[in-house]
């Protein structure tokens, strides 16, 4: 995200990240409201809009969750302002209900739902293909091939939504959002800035009497859109080919297919068509392409969405074109040039290109040399201390015999408590599930249950399950890991922080107050880096019958260090005194800070990585007390 330049003059050429390009496209499309809940790979879209909100008269907010964000954007649309709501792919599940309702009502101002699907599961727990959701919610889909196309299509999606009075889904993937390209900025459309609520209860109140009428109108509206998409420039037959076989590329696969064509030297012999609106599909163009080719291969990531629709279109038109897709290309994970070239080679009965065979050989050999390197909790992170404390309490209270503490967790940096050596995450489902799952488990098992949930996640979806746990008499301990920011997605604000997305001061809502108001039987607040206090508080909480809440609070170490660096404050550094160290390696085997380095049999601390939390100096981590603060002037 270096050097964002979305606020440049029209005609200027600059490097934009895919998500910045999308944001710029929306600015050029004249949005005045933007809402989101942080989530990879969507976060940079709102981040970018916030950075230029004043200049372009945009009201931007980090909402407490995706459902609320959707409602904020929908309100703008109801009031005649162009708006956008962006979220990670799985966030669409949370935002689903308002969109399912709003799609019946239709819109007067352009409104776009950005679904940033995480194909390849870079940081998500499912590879959910939200084209399927869009079809169910009657949202036409705009799906760009890359950052440049995304810039152009974001604006077009707003225009299209407004033209047809229908909300539109803009579907992107991690590969697009986190790519960048040189992009020439376009002019900004002037649109209405001041909202006006025109009372129309027969439209905005979806009682069945109104909804039945709107249902029929929705079907009619979609039929018109279906006929119109053929005219959009985002679908195109690039080359007709010689009729033997043709390829249809969808969204991000377009550039990949071009690479594969190059690698296999297919040239213009093979037909090529690209699709930018997978729903509804451009039927006339598809008819032409299918009629011109004996066989057609659909290249699309994840589900066989377009492929299945093509079969149905071919059937309706009585075409006998053979349609291929998932039979020769993978369904799971991203499709790169290697996958496409290999799939095409097999299809054509050829050997895959030699560079891929060599690369495969190198990769097979390399794997024994390179251990997996999953993301881990940072040096100095308070979450590590919290997980270590849970494990310590389990030991201190001799709970292992009773099957151990069950440790449900949640979505955030702290899911990494799963990693070795902490192993302190037993379950993880979705936002807020730690408390819901704990609540359910407590009625069916005898183990003690300590669940972990982050601050932003607590506000997002943790409150209803906490109320539920109290109301339904669960016996659980909730450890809220409060680092006072939405850390994993890049430090966004939330209701606990006391600052809005736009940087204005607001009421900060303390989690302990919420927990008390929810009726928790006990509530305690401790410093996440105070290991002794944390263990004591947890031991006490575990013994309490009912719902006990411990808030472990310390600012995210990355923010903390950044602030100190800015102020020129020294960051303390810790080192192992080799004279005292007895090489037991407990620090590495139980605490596992990434700053520990092993050379021969000696462990030392990489002072460049040490963030000075000092927790390793605690007796529980180093029984020899060999770790001490040191003077260090280097890096």
């Amino acid at each position, binding site marked *: *995200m*270096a*050097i964002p330049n979305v606020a440049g003059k029209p005609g200027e050429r600059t*490097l934009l*990240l895919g998500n910045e390009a999308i944001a710029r496209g929306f600015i050029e499309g004249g949005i005045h409201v933007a809402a989101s809940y942080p989530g*990879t790979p969507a976060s940079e879209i709102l981040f970018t809009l916030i950075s230029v909100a004043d200049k372009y008269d945009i009201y931007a907010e980090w909402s407490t969750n995706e459902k609320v964000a959707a409602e904020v954007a929908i309100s703008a649309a109801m009031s005649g302002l162009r708006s956008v709501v962006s979220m990670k792919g799985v966030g669409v599940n949370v935002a689903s209900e308002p969109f399912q309702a709003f799609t019946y009502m239709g819109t007067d101002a352009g409104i776009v739902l950005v679904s940033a699907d995480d194909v390849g599961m*870079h*940081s998500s727990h499912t590879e959910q293909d939200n084209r399927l959701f869009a079809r169910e919610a009657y949202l036409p889909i705009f799906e760009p091939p*890359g950052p440049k196309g995304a810039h152009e299509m974001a604006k077009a999606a707003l225009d299209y939504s407004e033209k047809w009075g229908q909300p539109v889904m803009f579907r992107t993937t991690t*590969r697009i959002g*986190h*790519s*960048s*390209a*040189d992009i020439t900025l376009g002019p900004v459309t002037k649109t209405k800035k001041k909202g006006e609520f025109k009372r129309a209860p027969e439209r905005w109140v979806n009682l069945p009497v109104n909804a039945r009428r709107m249902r029929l109108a929705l079907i009619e509206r979609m039929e018109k859109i279906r006929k119109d998409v053929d005219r959009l420039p985002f679908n195109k037959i690039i080359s007709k080919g010689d009729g033997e076989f043709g390829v249809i590329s969808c969204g991000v696969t377009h*550039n990949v297919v071009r*690479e594969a064509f190059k*690698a296999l030297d297919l040239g213009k012999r093979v037909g090529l068509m690209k699709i930018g609106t997978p729903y509804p599909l451009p039927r006339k163009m598809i008819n032409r392409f299918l009629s011109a080719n004996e066989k057609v291969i659909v290249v699309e990531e994840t589900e066989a969405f377009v492929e299945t629709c093509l079969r149905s279109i071919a059937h309706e038109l009585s075409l006998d074109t053979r349609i291929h897709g998932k039979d020769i290309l993978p369904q799971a994970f991203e499709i*790169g*040039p*290697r996958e496409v*070239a290999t799939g095409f080679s097999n299809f054509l009965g050829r050997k895959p290109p030699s*560079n*891929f065979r*060599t*690369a*495969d050989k*190198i*990769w097979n*050999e*390399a794997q024994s*040399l*390179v*251990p997996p*390197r*999953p*993301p*881990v909790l*940072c040096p100095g992170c308070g979450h590590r201390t919290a997980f270590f404390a849970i494990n310590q309490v389990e030991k201190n209270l001799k709970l292992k015999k009773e099957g151990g503490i069950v440790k449900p967790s949640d979505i955030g*940096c702290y899911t990494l408590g799963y990693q*070795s*050596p902490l192993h302190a995450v037993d379950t993880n489902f979705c936002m807020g599930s730690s408390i819901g799952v704990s609540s359910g488990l407590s009625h069916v098992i005898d183990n003690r249950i300590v669940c972990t949930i982050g601050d932003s996640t607590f506000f997002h979806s943790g409150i209803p399950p906490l109320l539920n746990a109290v109301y339904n008499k669960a016996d659980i301990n909730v450890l809220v890991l409060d680092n006072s920011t939405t*850390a*994993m*997605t*890049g430090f966004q604000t939330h209701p606990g922080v006391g600052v809005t997305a736009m940087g204005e001061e607001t009421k900060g809502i303390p989690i302990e107050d919420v927990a008390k108001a929810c009726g928790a039987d006990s509530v305690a607040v401790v410093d996440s880096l105070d290991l002794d206090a944390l263990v004591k508080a947890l031991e006490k909480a575990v013994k309490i019958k009912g719902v006990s809440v411990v808030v472990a609070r310390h600012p995210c170490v*990355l923010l903390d260090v950044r602030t100190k660096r800015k102020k020129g404050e020294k960051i303390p550094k810790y080192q192992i005194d080799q004279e005292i160290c007895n090489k037991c390696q407990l620090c*590495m*085997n139980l605490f*596992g*800070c*990434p700053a*520990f*380095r*092993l*050379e021969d049999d000696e462990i030392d601390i*990489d002072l*460049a990585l040490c963030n000075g939390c000092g927790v390793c100096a605690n007796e529980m981590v180093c029984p020899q007390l060999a770790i001490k603060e040191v003077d260090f002037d*280097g*890096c």
Partner: protein
Amino acid sequence: MAVDVKIVLAGVGGQGTVLAGSILASSAIKEGLSVRTYGDMGMARRGGSVGSFVNIFDKKGTSATAEGTADLLVGMEPIEAVRYCRYLKKDGIAIVNSYLILPSTVGKKDRKALSDVDNLLDFIKKNFKKTIVFDANKIACEIDSLTTNVVMLGAAFSTGKIPVSTETFKQTLRDSFAPKIAEMNIEAFERGYDECSGK
């Protein structure tokens, strides 16, 4: 001659691998060239394996880097250099920082075997035409530990394969950062360049 250069940067989340890629891309735009990049970005990658792909071209270029096609591999860390070297073409150049960062998730019994830096470097040397190895962390530490990524870029420029002038790159640093930080990074760039030029 048409410009079409593909560079792969590999490192550990937090080393500035993606940032290095985007500064490089910005400098290419200043030269009037086109760029396409992709990087594993965000806080969610902290401490994890990170790759950044930068393609620089004048007319026709590619946005999706295929295995076995990159011209340069900039390995910010030896394990990550090995992990990503399959993207490099046979006659490509690998520049590797010899400073090892062993994943903290590696278990007790594997730690020793997986810490053999020579083993990792030999693997790259065996498979590719040219490999340049040096300790970038050592140089960076004399300036600021956060400059390892730019020391490595300096080394990459010293191969002469990057179609951007060093002056343009330094100007990009000046345009991207506060003066003090820019100067620090320019020093890091020059130190990396001098360390590896002629190697």
